[in-house]
């Protein structure tokens, strides 16, 4: 099957769904969502806890409820969706090759592509924990699927490595199901998850959060029997003599998420080594003209509300691209993360329309200021109460400020220490 479509959206999770609706609102009729799973909604379907939608809907929704609001609207708008459609390849001329059990091989020629594939979890091998390879060592997300979608317990005595949000959520979830969560170990001196999750999922249940601790060995030949937990020094090296053997039958890993960019690599879009996603301008256009990216495939978000928002930005500029209203990508100014800032998104600016910069701190900082510079001139300054890698910050730039940046030819976001 070969077909043409104005905008093809790869991924029917929160990013893809919001992008589809925004593209339709921007006047694009011919849209196609390609989703690899049987249902729309992506990872939200297994996130049955609440806390979604506080920013967007001012209410606390569960993941499936949040997804449902978008799925319903997509259905109302009669936007075509193909589930069980797996994209295997994209080419530079925006041709998509996908397979589907009943349609067979599909060749879709798109006017614009929105990448919304989400992310995956970092596995054990990637963090090089030594030891045996028994059953019972799972990523937190896989355990979430087993528990919430299939109704099985991944273990009874649980240690969680990494304080990412999924790990925190699963600590509480498995406690509710009668498991004993012995501890959450975090190699950094602070949690990488949201502060509210640390409180609501660990503190409220007296689950110890061991900061600057990591798992240094895995024991058990068939099923996991124990792990060795060690303290680490400031360079994250385990300190000899601090080893403690903790018996457990399950180790959950919540040690980071990786944007799933295999398709993006294939068309050779420029990538940001820090975010693991594409380099984009304020319209979320990648270095490949007409190819846009949003959501966790672009950079890992802590809140789905911002995923939806970013998807709408990408969709509006994809619509403008299709309608020939705007040609992004020419004469861009790059934005640099300065002192104390891990990354800024977008990484480049190509226009002067008011826009918002997303950024994260490199470490946990209290007090001081965040500044935006055009060249050497501070054009925006804001007080900081707390900056943390686990919580994304935003700063709005107006037309005048953007004009200043264009004239200066460079932009930087930095953190300034509080004065003593």
């Amino acid at each position, binding site marked *: 099957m070969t077909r043409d479509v104005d905008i093809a959206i790869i991924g029917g999770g929160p990013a893809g769904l919001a992008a589809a609706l925004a593209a339709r609102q921007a006047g694009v009729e011919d849209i196609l969502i390609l989703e*690899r799973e049987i249902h729309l909604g992506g990872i939200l379907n297994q996130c049955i806890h609440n806390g979604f939608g506080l920013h967007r809907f001012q209410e606390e929704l569960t993941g499936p409820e949040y997804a449902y609001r978008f799925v319903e609207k997509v259905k109302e708008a009669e936007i075509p969706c193909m589930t*069980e459609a*797996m994209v*295997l390849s994209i080419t530079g001329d925006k041709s998509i*090759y996908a*397979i*589907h*059990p*009943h*349609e*067979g*091989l599909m060749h879709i020629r798109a006017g614009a592509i929105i990448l919304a594939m989400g992310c*995956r*979890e970092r*596995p*054990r*091998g*990637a963090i*090089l924990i*030594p*030891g*045996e*390879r*028994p*059953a019972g060592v*799972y*990523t937190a*997300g*896989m355990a979430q*699927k*087993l*528990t919430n*979608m*299939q*109704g*099985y*317990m*991944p*273990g*009874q005595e649980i240690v969680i490595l990494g304080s990412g949000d999924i790990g925190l959520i699963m600590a509480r979830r498995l406690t*509710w*199901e*009668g498991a004993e969560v012995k501890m959450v170990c975090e190699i950094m001196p602070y949690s990488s998850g949201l502060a509210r999750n640390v409180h609501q999922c660990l503190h409220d249940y007296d689950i110890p959060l061991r900061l600057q601790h990591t798992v*240094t*060995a*895995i024991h058990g*030949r*068939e*099923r996991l029997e124990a792990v060795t937990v060690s303290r680490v020094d400031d360079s994250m090296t385990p300190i000899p003599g601090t080893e403690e053997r903790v018996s457990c*039958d*399950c180790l959950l890993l919540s040690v980071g998420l*990786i944007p799933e960019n295999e398709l993006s*690599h294939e068309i050779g879009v420029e990538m940001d080594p820090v975010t693991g996603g594409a380099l984009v301008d304020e319209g979320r256009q990648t270095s490949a003209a007409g190819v846009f990216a949003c959501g966790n495939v672009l950079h890992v978000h802590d809140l789905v509300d911002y995923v939806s928002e970013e998807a709408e930005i990408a969709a509006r500029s994809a619509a403008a691209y299709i309608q020939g209203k705007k040609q992004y990508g020419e004469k861009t100014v790059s934005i640099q993360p300065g002192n104390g800032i891990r990354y800024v998104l977008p990484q480049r600016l190509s226009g002067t329309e008011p826009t918002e910069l997303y950024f994260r701190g490199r470490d946990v900082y209290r007090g001081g200021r965040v500044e935006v510079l055009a060249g050497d001139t501070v054009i925006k300054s804001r007080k900081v109460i707390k900056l943390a890698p686990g919580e994304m910050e935003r700063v709005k730039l107006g037309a005048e400020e953007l004009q200043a940046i264009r004239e200066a030819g460079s932009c930087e976001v930095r953190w300034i220490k509080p004065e003593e």
Partner: protein
Amino acid sequence: MYDVIIIGAGVIGAAAARELSRLRLHTAVLEAKADVAMGSSGANSAIVHAGYDAETGTAMARTNVAGNRLYDRWREELAIPFIRNGSLVLAFDDADMATLEKLRMQGVRNGVEGQRILSGAKAREMEPTLSEDIVGALYQPMGGITSPYQAVVALMENAAQNGVQVYLSHPVTGIKQDRNGFRIQTPEGDFHTKLIVNCAGVQADRIARLAGDDSFSIIPRRGEYCLYDKREGADVAHTLFQPPGKMGKGILVTPTVDGNLLTGPTARDIDDRDDTGTTDIGIGEVLIKSARSVPGLNRRGVIRTFAGLRAQASTGDFILGESEAVPGLIHGAGICSPGLSAAPAIGRELADAVRRLLPCEDNPDFDPYREAIPNFRESDWETRERLIREDPRYGRIVCRCETVTEAEIVSALHRPLPARTLDAIKRRTRAGMGRCQGGFCTPRIMEIIERELGIPILEQTKKGGASHMVTGRIKGGRAQ
């Protein structure tokens, strides 16, 4: 009553089983673990060595050179992945260059073809990511790579197809000699046989002792490895060895047949024959030493570390043929490196030893061909389209990292040597072997196993025994 029972379903046991299935004999295989290739054959360098490395005149040299040449036939008949990618032994100084010349001469004596000593510049021309420190290399065009566990699965499937009985999860607990041969004890019952072929890997000396032969012992030597994401594997085309030392062939860097990059192994003699755990020190050594050959290796590309045991015999060579102490007991023991390379020749030698003791006719129904599970990932678009049309389950991707379809997984569950565990499915289809290491596909595969085989998720294991995947139902679920 069997004519021959092979103990051990690694590459040696499987090669022997397949060779014996050419003969009109009642042959069975007893394997302690829940699947084939769960010992040394499941965790090694996956290299088919050219044959220059073993001392001339040894069983190792003889079977390595002969085995290497037979891999082309294994690929053709059994669809075993095999690429003759060529290897380079690297020299970092003049002393190493002298070592290379010695290896080359040994290769000539062993009958290895096509060897050449190259300059450092020439080596870098062939392999641009090589270190600037390399002053020369010994090029071995006969060197190759394979997939050891896929080879074992293919051999054993072909043996089973030709009438060999394979008993998995049948650990041997005792061997008694009787009038007609042997009575082999397992927790599942006794097996009677005229001959035994001992291919028990790191346990081969224990099997020998159970039968009354204590002429050798096995010293397990652990090797640790790092496996890289496919995007890191594209940079290296040849297998890159460092100059060999006393403990083995040094740390190598090699592409795998699946397009990953593999580095390792370390070499440490250990006492515990089940200890395939990795260590901080070992993995650190692999990372540091592999960077000597290819400085640009990015350790963030590592998706898995693992360790395997080589079954070193106290005799220093492979132990092949009938035991002097126990007539009727044939050893295929002490098979460390280059055992994988030598396996096709060892299988033949073991079958010849059986035939000498038990004259028999050829099996008239022997079919040397075995069809692999159609590999969706490596098929062209036309084939993919046809596969989906014939079976829509080919249009449903279960493992997205390795592009493994539902049809392939279902097929692995219904083959002549069916998969029964998560790891067994992985060995046959690569589902779960990619960059996410099964995070997405494992729950889905568990549902497919339940549906296809009726094994409830609660009873499913990663690798047999007590390696259950889940520990129970959530509250309010069905009673356990």
